[in-house]
């Protein structure tokens, strides 16, 4: 800033003072003078900081001469704001800018405005967090109220006349904005929030082009919150959304508001990383650039990114996400609103696994030569070799394993292909031996994720939802916080972010509860809606049938399965698990892998390959050079979830679709296409050539998979289960997921996830 500019500013200020008005430009001043004389209040509005006397005069003028009642056309509620009347008697009517809206009692003025289709600017208010009311940006004028009212914290009262677009409201917001911008650095050009910053957007409407603050701006020391969240604390406007998020949603009381007055800052006081599996969400809720994504820092501007609405496959929840890509590169992943599944949060694994999509990718078909090294070949050669080997072995020696990230289409194709080859040994890697694929209620989260909010007692059996499915855990946390629901847990010691009771570690405790000997039984009996959640980690135990029959008897004890409530839940671990069971990927023989001569791994990296005979021929079809590649004889490169259209069914039985956001890497192809091509080379051509064809095949096997974004509820049939003769072992339950950040080939290839495991897991 040169001398000239400063001089200009000084002279303007002085002239403004001389005229007892802070207006800055001559034209504005003229218009102001003109406006104060004109009776029409509509052109009274002018930008810049207005002085008080004039405004008071205007307010008096409007009070004296009441305006004729304006008739507003009905407006559509903002952002799908819905009005739900739990009790019709509690409906009240308020007027927003003269437009009458009917809302339930207890709604705030801001919510009433949203229903009326008026967007109120806000920073601290967030519909999923508690109300703080500290940013004052949402000030509105309420008739008969002497001062502007903070609409986010003010309950709407019957007959309230709310005015959102009056000079008083506008001036109040301009004042707030000036104070907010006073200490806010002018670093929008180097700020990652630029383009999606609430402060930037709202300063367009309420900001002045100059401020009156001539002092030194304050600066705040940046905090280290770990490898995921980058902090530039000078930009913070103290809205405390992150503090409330950490406390109320993530359930880790790490962040706080330290100091007071102008020295106020967000921090942890004693340096501490934010050890939450949901910490990435503070990036989204931060209205300014104080908390931004560390891996995404300085990588791209949000307006140059292409958004693709898809779903996440790193866990069985199927969180709705938006992949932002630039060219062939996934730049970031952010959540998408889905009230039934992930609300508007996603886990850190979902959000930051994307750099795994760029590393360790398989891009060419490869064959292991006699020297043990892989050699790139053409698709034709690779398929020819695979088909030839497959034809040479006995049909029962052919085994196919679908991996954790497989979509329903490719699993269908794999099963069809192997069946046509004469083998029925096709299975999914996380289901254990003899999985129950007959009754859908035997492997799904029957009460649905959002339905968990109705539960008042939880019994977690061998599952640690916090690391297995953070979004389900967030629901449980929400329920526990809202209704003080009781949580009982059976399993190894672990971290919970809500109050829980550790009942025991193994099947013994389960038996005690079933026999009514355990002190927790009284809670179970008194529960209205008991939710039993059984972890899918138990599916891999040898005595799982015995355990499940004990769980069934507990369910009977707590009257869990009723027509209005099905609280016997199974929490799956992998994105493809529910679909694999729906499609019936169940092996014919229990020890198929020991006798396999031809093993077809479709992205399966967690199969125990030690038992495999050394002369077995292993085909690995997948997108990452992960564990199984070391044993593979042939590699067939496939596309990852961000590159293909595929159907996934989440743990509650809701089928959803991924959409391709970026092109495939190298010569890779979609999984089902590879199998389709291979079937032709092998001489057992599959009868579908496109997705529509494969969908019509799926509609025969599992039609629910095709009803996208629809949850197919399970039927209740408790009597169908055969009696169990198995003996339960006393071996305690073990945790199904060792490292939350690394569970599949994508996350294992991710550098960010590796950093997280190194720095965040140690603390736990």
């Amino acid at each position: 800033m040169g001398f000239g500019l400063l001089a200009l500013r000084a002279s303007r200020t002085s002239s403004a003072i001389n005229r007892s008005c802070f207006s800055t430009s001559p034209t504005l001043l003229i218009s102001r003078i003109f406006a104060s004389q004109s009776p029409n209040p509509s052109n009274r509005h002018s930008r810049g900081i207005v002085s008080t006397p004039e405004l008071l005069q205007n307010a008096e003028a409007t009070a004296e001469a009441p305006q004729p009642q304006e008739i507003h056309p009905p407006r559509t509620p903002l952002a799908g704001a819905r009005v739900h009347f739990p009790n019709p008697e509690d409906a009240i009517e308020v007027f927003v800018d003269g437009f009458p809206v009917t809302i339930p009692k207890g709604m705030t003025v801001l919510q009433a405005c949203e229903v009326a289709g008026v967007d109120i600017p806000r920073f601290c208010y967030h519909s999923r967090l508690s109300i703080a009311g500290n940013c004052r940006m949402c000030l509105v004028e309420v008739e008969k109220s002497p001062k502007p009212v903070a609409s986010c914290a003010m309950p709407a009262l019957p007959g309230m006349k709310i005015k959102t677009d009056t000079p008083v409201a506008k001036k109040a917001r301009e004042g707030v904005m000036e104070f907010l911008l006073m200490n806010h650095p002018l670093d929008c050009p180097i700020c990652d929030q630029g383009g999606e910053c609430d402060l930037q957007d709202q300063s367009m409407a309420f900001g002045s082009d100059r401020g009156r603050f001539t002092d030194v701006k304050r600066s705040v020391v940046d905090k280290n919150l770990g490898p995921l969240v980058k902090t530039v604390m000078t930009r913070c406007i103290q809205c405390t959304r992150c503090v409330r998020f950490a406390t109320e949603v993530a359930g880790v009381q790490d962040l706080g508001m330290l100091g007071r007055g102008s020295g106020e800052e967000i921090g942890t006081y004693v340096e501490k990383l934010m050890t939450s599996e949901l910490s990435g969400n503070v990036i989204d809720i931060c209205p300014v650039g104080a908390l931004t994504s560390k891996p995404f820092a300085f990588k791209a501007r949000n307006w140059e990114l292409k958004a693709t609405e898809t779903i996440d496959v790193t866990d069985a929840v199927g969180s709705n996400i938006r992949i932002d890509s630039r060219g062939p590169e996934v730049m970031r992943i952010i959540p998408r609103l889905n009230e039934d599944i992930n609300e508007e949060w996603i886990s850190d694994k979902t959000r930051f696994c994307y750099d795994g999509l760029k590393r360790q990718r398989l891009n060419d078909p490869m064959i292991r030569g006699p020297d043990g090294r892989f050699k790139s070949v053409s698709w034709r050669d690779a398929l020819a070799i695979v088909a030839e080997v497959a034809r040479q072995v006995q049909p029962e020696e052919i085994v196919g394993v679908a991996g954790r990230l497989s979509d329903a289409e490719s699993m269908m194709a794999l099963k069809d292909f192997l069946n046509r080859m004469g083998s029925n040994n096709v299975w999914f890697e996380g289901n254990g031996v003899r999985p129950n694929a007959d009754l859908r209620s035997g492997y799904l989260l029957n009460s649905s994720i959002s339905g968990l909010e109705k539960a008042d007692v939880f019994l977690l059996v061998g599952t640690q939802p916090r690391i297995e499915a953070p979004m389900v855990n967030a629901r449980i946390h929400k329920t526990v916080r809202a209704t003080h629901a009781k949580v009982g847990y059976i399993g190894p010691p672990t971290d919970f972010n809500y109050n829980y009771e550790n009942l025991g570690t193994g099947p013994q405790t389960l038996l005690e509860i079933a026999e009514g000997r355990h002190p927790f039984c009284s809670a179970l009996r008194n529960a209205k809606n008991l939710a039993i959640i059984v972890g899918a980690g138990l599916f891999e135990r040898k005595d799982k049938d015995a355990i499940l029959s004990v769980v069934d008897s507990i369910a009977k004890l707590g009257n869990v399965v009723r027509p209005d409530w099905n609280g016997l839940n199974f929490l799956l671990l992998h994105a493809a698990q529910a679909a694999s069971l729906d499609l019936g990927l169940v092996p014919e023989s229990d020890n198929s892998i020991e006798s396999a001569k031809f093993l077809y791994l479709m992205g399966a990296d967690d199969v125990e390959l030690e038992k495999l005979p050394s002369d077995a021929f292993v085909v690995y079809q997948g997108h990452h050079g992960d564990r199984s590649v070391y044993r593979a004889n042939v590699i067939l490169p496939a596309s990852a979830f961000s590159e293909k259209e595929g159907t996934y069914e989440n743990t509650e039985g809701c089928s959803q679709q991924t959409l391709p956001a970026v092109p495939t890497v190298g010569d890779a192809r979609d999984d089902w296409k590879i199998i389709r091509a291979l079937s032709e080379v092998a001489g057992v051509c599959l009868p579908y050539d496109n997705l529509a064809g494969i969908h019509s095949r799926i509609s025969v096997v599992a039609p629910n998979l095709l009803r996208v974004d629809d949850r197919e509820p399970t039927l209740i049939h408790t009597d169908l289960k055969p009696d169990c003769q198995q003996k339960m072992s006393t071996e305690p339950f073990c945790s199904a997921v060792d490292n939350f950040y690394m569970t599949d080939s994508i996350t294992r290839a991710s550098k960010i996830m590796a950093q997280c495991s190194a720095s965040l897991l140690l603390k736990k």
Partner: protein
Amino acid sequence: MFARLATKRFLEIRQIFRQPSQPSRSFSTALNYHIDSPDNSPDTPWEFSVANKERVKEILSHYPSNYKQSAVIPLLDLAQQQHGGWLPVSAMNAKYPLQKNSSSRVAKVVKVAPIRVYEVATFYSMFNRTKVGKYHLLVCGTTPCMIRGSRDIEEALLKHLGVKRNEVTKDGLFSVGEMECMGCCVNAPMITVADYSKGSEGYTYNYYEDITPKRVVEIVEMLRRGEAPPVGTQNPKRIRSGPEGGNTTLLSEPKPPPCRDLDAC
């Protein structure tokens, strides 16, 4: 005319460039975040003394058992009294208590997350979160005292002791801080000398009023020698808050309050 305007504009430009004399006046003794130091780290064991544990129970009894967190301010105050006038981070939430399974830290006593205690401790400037001297000299900086020269007094103190604000002298005897209005405006300027060296039973918190830069140095020297300077006004011509040289008004007997003539009713 032109010259006058030019001069005015020049003065305004200079005003813009001139840095404020005190860029930021922090009222608290420490930063809003914790930095480990040998005498202040979460690893240092800390515990309420046996006598104070009784007082902790007594303080907690003032509040309903489901609102234990209400006791956080009195408990922090007690911890500060016990710890020589300042509050180490381990008093709020020590990683290791002195005895195993003992939960005698403020965050544990009131059963809240440590950050909730830190929030309170950083909010209130009377909680000293860094080490203070044996005598913590608090200069009142609010308007009446400031008009009567509290800045000069602070300057004299800092110069005499050779420290900066909130710094402890080498001998550990003194530290100087600032405090907001302590209600002695009629005897402004004033300082408070906080002496917590006798623990939570015998700590003193003395006011020295009507001080001058010269007198404040004398007070400091008396304290250094172990003497007890007379508290209250330091102006020999004043008696407490009375005017200098005796009363000048209201010398006669006060009139009784006016009363209705009851007989006339």
